[in-house]
């Protein structure tokens, strides 16, 4: 049956791989090809034996580095989600309240950067933020600073990069929920004597909650595992778990530990991923 192909494809190439990751996280690293020992072995008498090794998980607990990296990732993801929300809200509101003709153009302007290479847009920030980069040159020229600011290879640069790349993911759901709001509600609030600020906080903001929830989760979840941005803009002490997983795999070639790191990350992200489903369903019901 043709209609079963997507289901089977996703089962094989999306769901089952997680089981393989989990299985591998229980095996032991070895100098071999592939670099791990099998869990199941047949010994000489033909008896099947299982060797499960939860040592990788203990290893993650013992070494402060991993816990620190998880915490750091959560913190960076949380803070950048908040900044994204603060930057995106006025933009979404302005687009939703623009005239119908300019609305599509503005939406297009939000979506266009999303289509251009993510890697190259992150790369663009290196040229702006580095010591003799555009930002420092501009600030020096304006006389605002005497010495170049060290922004590259700090957490600040990582925040800028994340907010920049994930901004469209926040604007679009916010816009969808804001544009659905009935303008009559605001008029009613104004007629009843509410000032614009009051009307915003008691009408617009609460009604846009599904959009806020969806946008925040769309930013938060992928940022937790982000690799490219901390790798390019962050310094050696910007530890994010995606970067740790990458170096366990590519530099240390420790596949079992990398798998354990991925398993824990997945467990941490299951709840937000389910919340995202709920938020999107709530949004569909509302429309």
């Amino acid at each position: 049956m043709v209609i079963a192909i997507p289901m089977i494809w996703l089962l094989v190439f999306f769901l089952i791989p997680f089981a393989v990751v989990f299985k591998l996280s229980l095996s032991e690293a070895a100098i071999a090809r592939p670099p791990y020992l099998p869990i199941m072995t047949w010994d000489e008498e033909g008896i099947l034996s299982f060797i499960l090794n939860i040592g990788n998980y203990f290893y993650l607990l013992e070494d402060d580095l991993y816990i620190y990296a998880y915490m750091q990732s959560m913190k960076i993801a949380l803070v950048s989600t908040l900044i994204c929300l603060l930057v995106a809200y006025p933009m979404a509101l302005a687009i939703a309240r623009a005239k119908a003709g300019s609305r599509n153009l503005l939406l297009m302007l939000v979506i266009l950067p999303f289509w251009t290479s993510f890697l190259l847009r992150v790369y663009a920030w290196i040229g702006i933020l580095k010591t003799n980069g555009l930002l420092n040159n501009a600030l020096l020229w304006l006389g605002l600073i005497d010495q170049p600011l060290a922004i590259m290879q700090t957490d600040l640069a990582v925040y800028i990069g994340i907010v920049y790349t994930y901004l469209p993911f926040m604007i679009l759901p916010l816009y969808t929920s804001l544009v659905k709001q009935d303008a009559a509600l605001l008029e009613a609030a104004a007629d009843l004597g509410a000032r614009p600020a009051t009307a915003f906080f008691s009408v617009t903001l609460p009604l846009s909650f599904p959009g806020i929830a969806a946008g925040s989760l769309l930013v938060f979840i992928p940022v937790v595992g982000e690799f490219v941005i901390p790798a390019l803009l962050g310094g050696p002490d910007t530890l994010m778990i995606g970067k740790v997983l990458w170096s366990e795999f590519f530099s240390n070639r420790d596949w079992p530990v990398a798998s354990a790191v991925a398993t824990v990350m997945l467990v941490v992200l299951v709840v937000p991923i389910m919340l995202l489903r709920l938020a999107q369903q709530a949004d569909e019901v509302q429309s």
Partner: protein
Amino acid sequence: MKSRLGFVPVMAALGFVFLYVPIISLIVYSFNESKLVTVWSRFSTKWYVELLNDEQILNAAWISFKIGAISATAALVFGTIAALVLQRFGRFRGKTLLTGMVSAPLVMPEVITGLSLLLLFVAMESVFGWPAGRGLTTIIIAHTTFCMAFVAVVVQARLADMDSDQEEAAMDLGATPARVFWDITLPTIAPALISGWLLAFTLSLDDLVIASFVSGPGATTLPMLIFSKVRLGVSPDVNALATLMILIVAVGVMLAAWIMHSSKSKTAGSNSGEI
């Protein structure tokens, strides 16, 4: 709503500046003669010449193009089927599972997707002997998997938008489901299919993390090459490459927007789901 310059429009304008300054700076400095990317010396197109003579980059671009075209096409077929099944088949066993599997790849951190697929390929190779080694095929499979989720979202939004009256009328008049699909559903969702394919293609062309995990010797994609160059610092030929890619994408997106606009004039404002 308000005509005077308020807080919201000013913040929004600043937001747009923030979105576009990096892109504009990339383009401007690709025409800089100096090797120091951010120190302007004079206008020059020498980095473009250098780029077009760089065998390594051209080769990687060709590999990425092939992977993108094949995976976008496969993702288009599978993603459209998934969208149809979810949107038109009512309730069925496993619907929740399929919904979850279609939406999860959109937010799944790439390091997890990449690692899990690689481990699957290694396991499959040791059990079935296929895929033998890693390279183009494994990247295409990986890209098809995450791109089909994006296609499904775009097509599903379009299907939800279109009213099913025509389909039902055709059915009532005795058309077979296949006939209804080819004659009514497909032409109506065609714009979404075009934008879905383009989105899948650009996502594949752009992917660094997943490709790095599942790639093998001889299959270095363009993002992998750019990443290894960029790690050593900024280089002007990457700026030139970026400008060319931005130009191609901008033309493509405008073309797609134009096709969408001329084929559906009524559903204004509902295209937000079709990224």
